[in-house]
């Protein structure tokens, strides 16, 4: 079974399903689908910002073929065959579409990069990137996924792949799936009382007693601060 069949929206159920496009070829990469990202947000914006974002969302930049290529590449970079989902579950094509409109300096490198990739695939395997077979696509990626490849002809592809990897990683690790995958546990009210003892031991570190004497006693944090005339805290 084509593993893309299993992608769908397993992990971000509340979000609407993404577009599905087909090139007409059986088992083609163009069967790819992804989770759609929201197109309206509310998080403390000024009027000018709201207007700008509305304009960005109203604009459509990538052609369908380009979006499909982005989707296939993102899926290779961070596949969805993982308990925490992958790039397509995180809506990567939608994210890239938004970001290139937001930061328009990326528009050309990605459009041009896709065109380069298709040219390279045609030269090597006589079809564009999303049309060649999966092993052929991976062979192409093996050529351009490593910055230490010195072949001059590959450099534009390496540069493009690095850019797509950056977008994929940042686009995934800034979603709920990504934070879970990373194990991030912050962004919540808590009481910081120093590095856990076991972690200190792992690193061979310890708190200096004199330093600790200057630090907050969290059991007294709600008692209103008072000082003597010399600046010594007395409460």
């Amino acid at each position, binding site marked *: 079974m084509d593993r893309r069949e299993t992608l769908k929206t397993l992990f971000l159920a509340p979000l609407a399903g993404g577009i599905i496009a087909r090139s007409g070829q059986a088992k083609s990469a163009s069967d790819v689908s992804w989770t759609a990202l929201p197109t309206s947000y509310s*998080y403390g914006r000024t009027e000018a910002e709201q207007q700008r974002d509305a304009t960005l969302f109203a604009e459509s930049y990538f052609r369908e073929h380009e979006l499909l290529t982005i989707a296939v590449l993102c899926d290779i970079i961070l596949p969805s065959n993982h308990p925490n989902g992958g790039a397509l579950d995180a809506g990567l094509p939608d994210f890239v579409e938004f970001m290139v409109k937001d930061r328009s300096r990326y528009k050309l490198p990605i459009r041009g990069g896709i065109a380069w990739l298709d040219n390279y695939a045609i030269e090597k395997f006589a079809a564009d990137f999303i049309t060649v077979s999966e092993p052929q696509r991976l062979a192409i990626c093996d050529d351009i996924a490593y910055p230490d490849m010195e072949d001059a002809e590959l450099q534009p592809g390496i540069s493009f792949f690095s850019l797509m990897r950056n977008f994929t990683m940042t686009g995934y690790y800034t979603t709920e799936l990504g934070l879970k995958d990373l194990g991030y546990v912050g962004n919540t009210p808590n009481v910081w009382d120093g590095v856990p003892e076991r972690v200190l031991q*792992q690193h061979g570190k310890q*708190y200096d007693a004199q330093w600790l004497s*200057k630090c907050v006693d969290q059991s007294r944090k709600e008692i209103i601060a008072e000082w003597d005339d010399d600046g010594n*805290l007395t409460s």
Partner: protein
Amino acid sequence: MAEQEYDVIIIGSGAGGGMATHQLANAGLKVALVEAGAYYDPADEEQRTQLRYPWESPRRGASTRLRPFGDYNSCIGGWELDGEPYTMKDDTDFMWWRGRMLGGRTNHWGRISLRFGPLDFKRKDSDGLGDNWPIGYEDIKPYYDKVDKLIGVYGSNEGLYNDPDGFFLPAPKPRLHELYYIDGAKKSGVPVYPARKSILTKRINNDRGVCFYCSQCSRACGIHADFSSGTVLIYPAIRGGQVDLYTNSMVREIITDEEGLATGVSYINKEDRLEYQLKGRSVVLAASACSSARILLNSRSAQHSNGLGNNSDHVGRYLHDSTGASRAAFLPELMDREIYNEDGVGGMHVYTPWWLEDAKLDFTRGYHLEIGGGMGMPSYGFGFAVNQYNDFIGERVGGYGNQLRDDIRKFYGSRLSIACRGESVPQYTNRCELDPTVVDEWGIPVLRFDYHWTEHEINQARHMQDTMEELLEASGGILLGSKAGADRDYGLTKPGEIIHEVGTTRMGTDPATSVTNEFGQLHDASNVFIADAGPFVSQADKNPTWTIMALAWRQSDYLIEQMTQGNL
């Protein structure tokens, strides 16, 4: 609008304007507070960015021209404002940040709250450059003490002569990367102390909450556990009923009478684009060093033909900003670390103040070190160059597939960075002045900057680079990037970039070489005061906010006294 005459019209609601509002309104004076930006309260759900996850923003927190410090940063304003240009003379490359919101730039500063020390007020005595302040540490100390107690600042009393003790709240314990830094600095013989930041690690009153350690002070705190002028000074003052707040009001000029004294201000309401006037017995100008200079220079009259307060031709001169440089390292010992909630307070828990006062160096005046690192919340840019550190551990950079997940976790939180902030030497020729031809969208002439660093700042930046390399390596780090050399002025930041601009209306005893007296009162118009960083004679390697507020408080006491005596 009624023909009300205010006791005081305060222009600008940042650190200085907020403190003036708080003190003068609490003393019973009738105050008009005029702010060019909109009303802002981080506790308002409509304006909240705190505690939001990255995916709540379509750009995952990336910066935009409208939010240059990131999509969740509470700044409203920036380096470029629509309709409000500024220009540069010759090859000047000045960056001018303007806040446009209630509370001004105090909504999104680093909360680093450092007193100037005795040496900082008398730098000419030690290096012969620039000028001494007309006041000394002993004059301002009582006000620093009051500011500490009113606003709250964590830190520690260390008995350091030029980094004086105060009334501190207890410090947060260092994070893991900070422990690495402390050990590294110890090896290099460089001191480290708890940082000093205006964040409430302990309750200070019943109005404000206690820090809950989300590390997001830059997004402004919904429970007001960090200092901003709006939350800590202006809201309480407004509740007292003595303050009329005018927002979205862009001041064009201060109006003076035939005796040359101020009678009010003229401003443009940005919503209807019409011009209005307020009448007042006195004016406190606190629009930020450069904006206040601009308003003075635009306040021309028969009595002040060169601009208000500018008989000396010193308004706009001696503009200076902090120097800055930064460097980062990869700490292999922090690879594959255990993940726990390490958010802490916003920014650093530890810092290094200037420690080489007595050393022989090829530059004068010092700098302090700010420490960064940790397991922050991912936002746009996280995961870029995901496994570039593989280079350092003999593994291949690049690739694709699920092994990238391992790379992300392997290197998460393994970076240690240092930023230096130093004192520059004020120069007569570094200035802002009115551009002779360019106006903003309201027809107000704009500022033109003329500013160049000197060899003191460039040599200082070279020393910063050497220091950062030594300390990062001593902490176990592998340096990232290349060391900035002479071709890049050793990584020295652009003037204006650190957003500590001061000096444009410097204080002094001689009206021929200064703009205000020691109370920020104009030599040329006794009922006009400057309460921002314009009156600073020199800037120290300390962030200016605490000194702005101490001076504003001292000025307020003087203003009230003068008014009581019938002198205003």
